[in-house]
Structure formats: structure tokens, C-alpha cells
């Protein structure tokens, strides 16, 4: 299995992002056990130390917690944490890129807002 995400991000971060995606879409539920570093290593053909780094990143952010001898588990408020992190970070960046591109293509503010409204209302992502 290949890890998604761009080459700009180190592997361990992409692992963390992938786990976050699984939590967001409900595949990993709160208080459910997350894959261990060894399982991740085998799944993605990477060094377990790299996988561990990704898990530790999530643990530092409070998205997962460690149960001594049992592994890492999804925190109760994991979804909210991830949503907040991405809203404040990656999403804002995406919006900035969109505005910059619109300006570059000489799409004015009204047109841009119309376009976004149109896409939102046409049921994209439902």
C-alpha cells in the first residue's frame, strides 16, 4: 500500500494525516485501538520507527492516547481536535491558495464567491 499525500511532507506526517482521515470518516472510532507501529510498518513498507513517529505526533496533539502495554487508542474528542486543527491550518491555506489563483486568473471577488456558492449548493461531497 502506498501512503497518500505529497512528497513535501515527511512520511511520518503522512501516516499521521492518514490516521486522522480514518478517524474523521468514522473508520476508527473513539476509544478504538489504532494500528501499532509494527502493523503500520508492514502495511506501508516503512521502518517502524517512522510509523512510531507518526503515532507520537498524534499522541502529542491529544488525538490518540497510550494505554500501557496495550497500544494507542483514539481519544474521545479526536474528531473535534482534528477538525479544529485542519480548519485553522490546512483549510485556511487551501483558501489562501484559491484566492491567489483566482487573482492570478483575474477572477473578481464576486465571481469567486458565486463559484464557491454554486459548487457548495450543487451537492458536491454529499
Amino acid at each position: 500500500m502506498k501512503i497518500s499525500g505529497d512528497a513535501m511532507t515527511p512520511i511520518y506526517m503522512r501516516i499521521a494525516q492518514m490516521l486522522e482521515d480514518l478517524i474523521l470518516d468514522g473508520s476508527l472510532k473513539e476509544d478504538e485501538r489504532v494500528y501499532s507501529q509494527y502493523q503500520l510498518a508492514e502495511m506501508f513498507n516503512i521502518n517502524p520507527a517512522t510509523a512510531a513517529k507518526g503515532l507520537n505526533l498524534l499522541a502529542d496533539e491529544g488525538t490518540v492516547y497510550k494505554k500501557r502495554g496495550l497500544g494507542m487508542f483514539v481519544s474521545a474528542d479526536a474528531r473535534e481536535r482534528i477538525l479544529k486543527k485542519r480548519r485553522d491550518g490546512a483549510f485556511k491555506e487551501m483558501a489562501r491558495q484559491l484566492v491567489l489563483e483566482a487573482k492570478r486568473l483575474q477572477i473578481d471577488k464576486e465571481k469567486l464567491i458565486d463559484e464557491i456558492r454554486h459548487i457548495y449548493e450543487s451537492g458536491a461531497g454529499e
Partner: protein
Amino acid sequence: MNAVESTGLVKAFGKKRAVDGLTVQICENRITGLIGRNGAGKTTFLKLIAGYLKPTRGSVDVFGKNPFDNLDVSNNLIFVDDGMAFSQSFTLGEIIAEMPRFYRNFDLELATKLLDYYSLDKKQRTAKLSKGMRSSFNAIIGISARAAVTIFDEPTTGMETAARKDFYRALLKEYIAFPRTVILSSHLLGELSGLLEDIVLIDSGRLVTVMSADEAATYAIGLRGGEKQVGELAGERQVLYREDFAAGVYLVVKGGLAPEEAARAQKLGVEVTPVEADDLCIYLTQKDKGGIDSALRRE
């Protein structure tokens, strides 16, 4: 404890110093990549670690012991390269059957399964194998030995892509199941970087740097665009590589970009690209800042 420690290690062959003052530590129970150009001193260093060569000056220790002529180290260390020689009186099957005498943890069942998987005939002798098959056989021995220090010197020479991928996977899984110190030298860093935990980069017999595989991924960035714009963005950063072309310049600089800098790059129309570990190692060890194009340029 460190698996390997070298201090001011020098190995000279006549006037030529293949290893020229190398001081480095390699952590135990990790997969470490020894990376460098041809002639950088990788093989010589590995042979010094394995106790095949004696230092001219300085020292190298394996788990605190001098590996040269040391049975204790020999019992717990396997060195796999394409010079690995086996008697022609033995077939492949007979060789693996005898390996447990030399390596007490040798997994005969695994070796047998791998021989089958690689379609290596147990009744064959090593001289009759193709280069790729011989590399595969040596790799099988190396993985199955479960030696505390397992060294592979360019283990995939002649192996086709599928065989290489299988080798890395088998090595990874066996390393997870039975941890050991693995040192792997290769110049195919691109396909290796997921497997490695640490990278030791050497050049001209000396240490350039040690970094973790993920540090390597973000060590440097590429900036492409007009000379002035790229120059502004690059600022005072160390330039690792420069390539001029008609419309501008491509610069590889150390470090990453803060969000404000990334925004500035976009405004300036400078393209920012990642620098993969294998390219990074080339830039950190190259002789001429211009690369091959400077040799190809016609005046």
C-alpha cells in the same frame, strides 16, 4: 549502546586513503543506510567494521570490541556483498543447511522458503547462478542469519526491480520480527528511504553528516524561478546546488520555508519543490556546483 563506533578511522592503501579520518556512531537495532558516491569509502568502512581489514590509524569498535580477528564479533556479525564466496563443493541447499554451524540463530526454514520463492534450485552451485540470482542468494543468507550486526554492501547489484522490492520487504519484516542492527550501503537511496531509520552520508572517506531518514526529507528545498526572485527568497541560506537555465535559476537551499516565506514565494512566482533524500545526498557530496551540464556545455 552503540553498535558501531569509529574514531578518527583511517585506512590507506598505499598513498590512497579510502577512509580518511572517519568518526561516527551507528545505533544498535536500527536500519542505517550508509550512503555515498562510488569511491566514497563505503565498502572499505564496512569491511573495517566487519573486521576484514585492519585500520591504518584510529579505531572502530563493534559493541565495544575490536572486530579484527575477533571470534566474538565474527559469531554475531554477517557481511554480505557480491564477493561473498561459497565453496563450489556445496550446492545451495547444502550451504544453507550448514549455516547454523556458523550463525547460531540461522533460520533454516526461512532460508528454504526464500530459496523456493526466488526459484533458486537447491541442487545448483553458486558459480552457475546469474549475477542477480547470486545477489538474491547472498541476501537470503544475510536475512536468515539473524546476526546481531547484519551488513549489506550494495546487496541488490544485478537484481531486477521486483527482486529488490521483495528483498527490502523481507528484510523489513524479519527485522521487525527479530530486531538487529542492520547497515545497508547502497546508492539507490530513492527506493530505500522508507526502509531506513538513519542515514550516514560519507564522502572522500569522511563523514558528511548523519541524519534520520525523515530529517533528510525536509533538509533542503528547491526554488525555481527568476534569478532575482529566487535570490530574495533564498536570502542568506546555504546553497547546495545551482542550475542556470534560460528563464531563470534552480537553487537548492538548506532549510524549509515558514508560512510567510511560502506566501512570498507564491507572490514572486517562485516554484518551491521538495528535495528527495537521494538528490540531497548528491548535492551534499558533489564536487562541482554545476553538475554534469557544465561538462556538456559547449563554449
